[in-house]
Every structure is written in structure tokens, then in C-alpha cells.
């Protein structure tokens, strides 16, 4: 294991109905600067495409980012499709952004339901990047040690 290059293989993606991409461009740069390798799937990613991409890349981590208010709805659906694949059942998958249409209202309940649906962590807008970085550090330690 120690011979492997440091850093995680990460898939960064939007969701099927979300056309925003600055969040994806930014996350890619953040992850690359931390030494991770990124496949950026881009905007409006249909569920099947995301599943195929993840099956093909076998990433250490999938970062789902959504800011159009449909993140909770679309995110709940796609995690089921990802977890249904044996190769992705244990892959770390996180989701973040603006996940509902009403701002931060209901964020805690949304997060609980998203975790129950299969996400490893939820970073609703406002929790900041620090929590995401901490998660990455822990994941890296867990995956690589």
C-alpha cells in the first residue's frame, strides 16, 4: 500500500437537473491543490452516466455538488443507484451545496435523510470548506493506511 501515490482518486459531479459548474471548477482546483486526482464529470449529469463513470473510474471518493435547490431530491435518487452497484457500495460519497429551495431552512433534517439514504457526509452551504477538508484528511488516512 505504501508504494501507491498519495492522494485520492476523486470524481466531482453535478446532478441530472443542475447546470451550475463554478462549484465544480472550484472543487476540482481545491482537490488538485491538496494532491488529489480529479475526474470532473461536469453539469447536468444523468444518473446512469454518473454510475457508469464511477464504475469505470473506481474512485476513492465521489463528490456530488449541487446548488440549484433540487440537490436533496436528485441526490436521494442517485445515491440509491450508486449503492446498488457492488463496486460502489462502500465507496465514500459526499454531497454538498444548496440542497433545498428554501435556503438553509431544514438543512439538518435534509442532512440526516441524505446520510440515511447512503451518503457518508453532507456539507450544506454554510458549513464551509474546513469540514470538507477534515473529511478528506480522515478519508485519506482511512483509505491509505
Amino acid at each position, binding site marked *: 500500500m505504501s508504494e501507491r501515490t498519495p492522494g485520492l482518486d476523486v470524481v466531482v459531479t453535478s446532478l*441530472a437537473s*443542475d*447546470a451550475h459548474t463554478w462549484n465544480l*471548477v472550484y472543487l476540482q482546483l481545491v482537490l488538485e491543490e491538496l494532491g488529489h486526482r480529479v475526474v470532473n464529470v461536469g453539469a*447536468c449529469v444523468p444518473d446512469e452516466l454518473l454510475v457508469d463513470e464511477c464504475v469505470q473510474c473506481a474512485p476513492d471518493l465521489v463528490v456530488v455538488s449541487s446548488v*440549484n*435547490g433540487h440537490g436533496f431530491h436528485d441526490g436521494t435518487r442517485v445515491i440509491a443507484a450508486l449503492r446498488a452497484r457492488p463496486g460502489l457500495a462502500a465507496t465514500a460519497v459526499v454531497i454538498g451545496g444548496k440542497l433545498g429551495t428554501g435556503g438553509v431552512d431544514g438543512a439538518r433534517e435534509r442532512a440526516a435523510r441524505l446520510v440515511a439514504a447512503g451518503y457518508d457526509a453532507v456539507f450544506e452551504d454554510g458549513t464551509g470548506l474546513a469540514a470538507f477538508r477534515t473529511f478528506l484528511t480522515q478519508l485519506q488516512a482511512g483509505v491509505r493506511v
Partner: protein
Amino acid sequence: MNGFGRFVAEADGLVVQPRMGFGSPELMRRGLAAVRDSGTLAVGTITLDSYTRVGSHDVARAALAAGDDLNGYPIVAHPVDTTLAVVDGIAGAGFPVQVRHGSALPQDIVAASIAAGLYATEGGPLSYCLPYSRVPVREAVRAWRESCRLLARLRETGAEPHLESFGGCMLGQLCPPSLLVAISVLEGLFFQRHGVRSVSLSYAQQTNADQDAEAVHALATLAGQHLTGHDWHIVIYTYMGVFPRTPHGASALLAEAARLAARTGAARLIVKTVAEAHRIPTIEENVAALRTAADSATSTTYEPSTQDTGILAEARALVDAVLALDDALDTALVTAVELGFLDVPYCLHPDNPGRTRTFVDHDGRLRWSRLGALPLRGIADTGGDHDVTAAGLLRALSHVERRFDDAAIEQDLHALHLDRPCEPTSERNA
């Protein structure tokens, strides 16, 4: 009949328009009525939800059935009678309503709009393809050609359908003015070549008001040279990037967009609200934004010209290079993207070459740092090699937000100090 272009042309002052859409027909109707009755020179908007934008009408129907919130009005999922009832007695010659959607493949949206008597919409084969979809440019061009023809056919009934190019936005930020102007002109020309005579060209407020004013004049110059007839106008979009979070900052940015429209003689302005940074705005917030914009425009004087830093020359070079690729504009647009003659900075679309880069300079102006294969060698200056870091990107993306929020916080702090002169400065964090 929905004479959108005529209404704008005959308006005595800047026409203001919200971005507003609700899943609920009742709320949508109430919103349209509130805009009509806002006391401003307004046109109405039905903004569609993002399931409809990507053609997932079944998902939109399921969401409606489940009572889930949608981020806009699902015009295809709702029966046509529902939409007819939404606009009945509201939309008309005195209050035209435009459908705004964001779809690269809009035929079903255009058909549903036409069925509901709504003959004005917006988008374009590049502007709704590259930033917002994964659809190949070639397919989007074909889809928009078909959509233009659906609209153009209405002219046989005496109606004058209207199409607005969204080309002045392109990811909302960090796309230099010349490329925005060029894409707007090319899309307006595309609409006209496919039979839609009444068109508008857009320009989204960027990082520097003087640079924006120069760009809008360049847009008007090129439109005058390339478009046929007189039924065209320019629409300004209030800032489409990361928006100020403070109410004062958001209002000040909106006011600056209204001044941009007024000083350049643009005919129409699409507003943003104080809720923009936080959530989908309410009807009341939209109406307040229309009034703020109208007030700012009224107190601004038209300026017939601006300084020339080369935006017109750049935009003209881009337009001319694309038009020279093929007599058929459809083919020229596809080839232009393939060759990188049109290459939108930071755009992740699979067809976009992605070799251009930009930055915000010390004066707050948007500049090229890498030209890729754009036909701008010897025409555009590049500001050296700015390698983009995550922090640098965030700084550039939040440049406008910070400028307006900082000013708003200073203002509030000042007011606070006048009220209570002994308060410590740590109030800033309160």
C-alpha cells in the same frame, strides 16, 4: 398576440423584467399579476424549473404529484389548460410575458409555450448548450433551428414571435465582454436566418461598469451591422455571478445594472433580488427589485459613447472569423467551437475546447490571460500567465460580491457609529 418586441420598442423608458417562476400555477399567476401591477414599465416572466430544462418532464410531474418544491414553472408537465388559466386576462399586448428556460433542446418547451399563447422566449444554440448542458453543439444547433421554425410559423397568423439570445451571459462570470458580445450577435443572426425577425441581444453586467458600458455600445454597433430590420433591442442582465449577500449590497449592484442599461440606451433590464444569494425570491422581493431598478434608471443620463479599449475590435474579429467559416451559419457555429474560435473560459462542456483563461485585473476589468485558439492574436492583450489557483478563482468569482458587500457593511457600520458612537468596531462581526 404577444408583440414582445413591439412593446419594448414603444415603451417610454427602460423596460424591467423579473426572473420569476413557481411550480404552483396559483403562485405563478399571482406573481405575474403582481409584476403587471408593480407600477413599473414591466414585462412578465415565466421561468421554468430545471427538470423541464433538461427534458425530465416525468420527474417534474412526479415532483408536482408529491408536493415537492420546484425551482420554476414546469410548462410541459402542466396541462396546456393550466397554463392558459395562469396567463388568462394577464398576458397580452399591454403586458407581454416571456418564457425563460435554459434548455439546449427546447422544442417541447417552445411548443408548450406556443400552445399557451406565449410567443416570446430566449436562449440560443450556444448560450443554452455550452454552459448548461452536455448536449453536443451540433444537436443543439439543430434543436434551435427547429424551435426557430416553430416560432417563425406563427407569423402566418399575424403574430410576431420574439427570441432573445442568452449569449451575453456564458457562465455568468469571467467571460470577457468581447466573447459575450460576439456570441449574442451570432445567435441573434441565427434566429433571424431561421425566420424569427424580432430578436433581442443580451449582455450580462460583469466586473467593471465602464468596461460594461463599452461592451454594450460595441454590441449595438455590431447588431446594427449584422441584423436585418429594426425589430431588435438590447437587454441587460443584472449580475449573473456570485451575488452580494447583504440586502444593501444586492440592491446597489442591481442599481448599477440599471444605470448601465440607462447610460448605454439598452431597452430592457432583467433584475435580481436581495434574496439572490440565499434562495428563490418571493413575489414581493421581485416587485421591490423592479422598483429599485426603475428608480435608478430614471435618474441616469444616456451617454452616447464611451472610451474604446478594444472590445469592439475583438468582438468584430470573433464574429467575422466565425462567419467566414461557412456560408451556413449553423455549420459555422459548430466548426467555430471545434476549432476553438469560440472557447468559453472555465466551461466544462465536452465540446468546449477549454483552452482560454481569464482574470480580474487591478481595475476590476475582465481580461484574457490565455487566448487558446481564439482568432484574437495581435488584437487582444493578454495579461501574462496567471495560473489559476482555487483561492484565486474564488477571489475572482467573489470580486463583485465582496466589493458590494464590503461597501454595504461600511455603510451600515457608519450608520451604527452615528447612532451609537461609543460602540467598539467589533460590531462588524455582529
